[in-house]
């Protein structure tokens, strides 16, 4: 896990970025929940969602648990259809007949890395499964792409023969990313990809996603309830509350200048909001100095 320490080119990309995924006035409600209390509260219903993910950008989606983040991911992956409104991919309306082609270009990374892997199939087979399924390739023909995919996520070849329960959560999440990458997609939809991982591993995955975005021009939809990781990775942020978008904008607008009380209260409640800056610089083993506490100016 070493690559340049240079910050991602967030702002240079902005000019050239056009929408790649777009939700227009999307409404959605789970059928089973229609008559339940959740509907009254608006919990299980998505209401008039408008959202744009731009090419080459990382778009963050935050919101408390149950606010509908995963539901948006499901809609975008074509796992369920909206009750009203449209979803556009690359300017084209997403329709059932275009789904198969669409899925080659938009791939998911899920929250629990181990659950997203079949517990009884070796890792290597699982990574190349999308190729076998989509292109009827033989396993032997996939080896080059497999090698490329695993090296892109920083895994070594010895993991390929293992079973999911023999690897760690961080490795499993990398495997998931590798499986998504093997189809060479344009968009990764990451539904809380780091929430189940612990601090140090979370950092590894965040770095990896950031690298991939830069090196491959991948667009990312990054869903999380952890403001810190969204803040780290994304240049645009949408805030969701009970199925509606309450705030949306660039990272700085949302974090530094929240418009809504809700967002403000979220930011306030983050314990020790200054943490992460103090020791953030690569330090020698025993530097006892206390890190800078002033925020760097936005560029």
């Amino acid at each position, binding site marked *: *896990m070493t*690559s340049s*320490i240079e*910050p*991602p080119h*967030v702002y240079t990309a902005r000019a050239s970025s056009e929408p790649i995924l777009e939700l227009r006035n999307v409404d959605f409600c789970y059928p089973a929940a229609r008559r339940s209390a959740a509907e009254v509260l608006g919990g299980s219903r998505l209401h008039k969602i408008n959202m744009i993910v731009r090419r080459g950008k990382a778009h963050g989606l935050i919101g*408390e*648990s*149950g606010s509908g983040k995963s539901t948006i991911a499901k809609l975008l992956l074509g796992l369920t259809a909206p009750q009203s409104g449209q979803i556009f991919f690359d300017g084209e309306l997403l329709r059932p007949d275009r789904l198969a082609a669409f899925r080659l270009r938009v791939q998911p990374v899920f929250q629990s890395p181990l659950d997203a892997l079949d517990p009884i199939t070796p890792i290597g087979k699982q990574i190349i499964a999308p190729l076998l399924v989509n292109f009827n390739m033989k396993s032997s023909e996939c080896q080059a792409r497999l090698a490329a995919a695993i090296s892109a996520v920083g895994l070594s070849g010895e993991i390929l023969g293992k079973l999911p329960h023999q690897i*760690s*959560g*961080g*490795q499993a999440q990398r495997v998931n990313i590798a499986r998504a990458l093997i189809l060479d997609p344009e968009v990764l939809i990451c539904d809380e990809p780091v929430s189940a*991982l*612990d*601090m*140090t*591993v*979370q*950092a*590894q995955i*965040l*770095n990896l996603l*950031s690298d991939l975005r830069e090196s491959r021009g991948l667009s990312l939809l990054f869903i999380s*309830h952890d*403001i*810190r*990781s969204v*803040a*780290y*990775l994304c240049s645009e942020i949408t805030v969701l509350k009970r199925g509606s978008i309450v705030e949306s904008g660039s990272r700085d607008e949302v*974090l*530094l200048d929240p418009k809504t009380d809700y967002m403000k*209260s*979220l*930011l306030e*409640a*983050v*314990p*020790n*909001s*200054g*943490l*992460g*800056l*103090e*020791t*953030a610089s*690569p*330090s020698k*083993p*025993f530097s*006892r100095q*206390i890190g800078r506490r002033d*925020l*760097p100016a*936005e*560029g």
Partner: protein
Amino acid sequence: MVCSEGGIMDQTSSHALEAPYARTLEHGSAGRPAIAAGSAPILSITGLTVVLAEQPETRLLDAVQFELRKGEFFALVGESGSGKSVLCSAIMGVASSELRCLGDIHIEGRRLSDVDRRQRAMIYQQPSLYLNPVRRIGFQLRETVQVIDGLSKKEASERAADLLRDVGINDPNETMRKYPHEMSGGMNQRVMIAMALAMKPKLLIADEPTSALDVTTQKQILDLLEQLRSAMAILFVTHDLGIALQRSDRIGVLYAGQLVEIGRADLTARTPLHPYTRALFSAVPPLSGRPRRLHSPAGSLPEPTQRQAGCNFASRCSGTLDICQHTRPALQGIAQQLVACHNLEA
């Protein structure tokens, strides 16, 4: 910003954490109760080793040793799988019977097996597993109150309602009529907390009690614990370094079953001594500021079955010495902290 005078901490001198002292850089020190200085520790653990009953060479915990005093808030942090929950359940005496606990755990100077169970209470990590799914919340809470306080049914109901109010449930009577499955994870978590508080324990073990809660409720619970802490010792397990730093008196860092660092919260955050602690703190993404690369050691926690003789962190450490490969470092005092690392130039 005042640091209390602590003695040099090592294994022989018990932690002489005395007098009021500030916790974190950000937080003011107002209202922090005193830790009874010099009093006998409420919890003292020596050489706690937990092994698998079937493979005694596999150590989930390795010679863990620390003490807790009345009024103290001790945050235990560490990677997932490092053994935090195992430690908690060992102290509670509810460890799965596949595990075997060696070493001594004393509560108020008495051996665990002789201690009244009411002295300690635990908030479990997964509340839904620890609540009876087919009994109403009210029943379970009232039952506890009845058994502990010997109250009548009516009194017990009232007391239960009070407890629920304390943990931030606004409509306790409504809640008491519900079943665990009818409530969110956060609500259940709060019920667990109320139940633990109903025991009026001397030692409260909280295993990630707030990870299912959203940030605002989390704050509420933490404030409640803050109020109650003067009467008890709190062992608080968390992943959130923010909470650890903000609320605790001391932080303990568990890595691969070994306590690798113990120290005052502010000191630990500011000057982490163990490379893992350092890695931990630097892996936290900053909330604001220009995004940079996060620092994180490569690799992951070794599984309990694959731990080698040497330092558990050696494979991920950038400053390994030869000795790291074959000798496991012991906790030793460096300034006011305790750390288990060979590569210390103090």
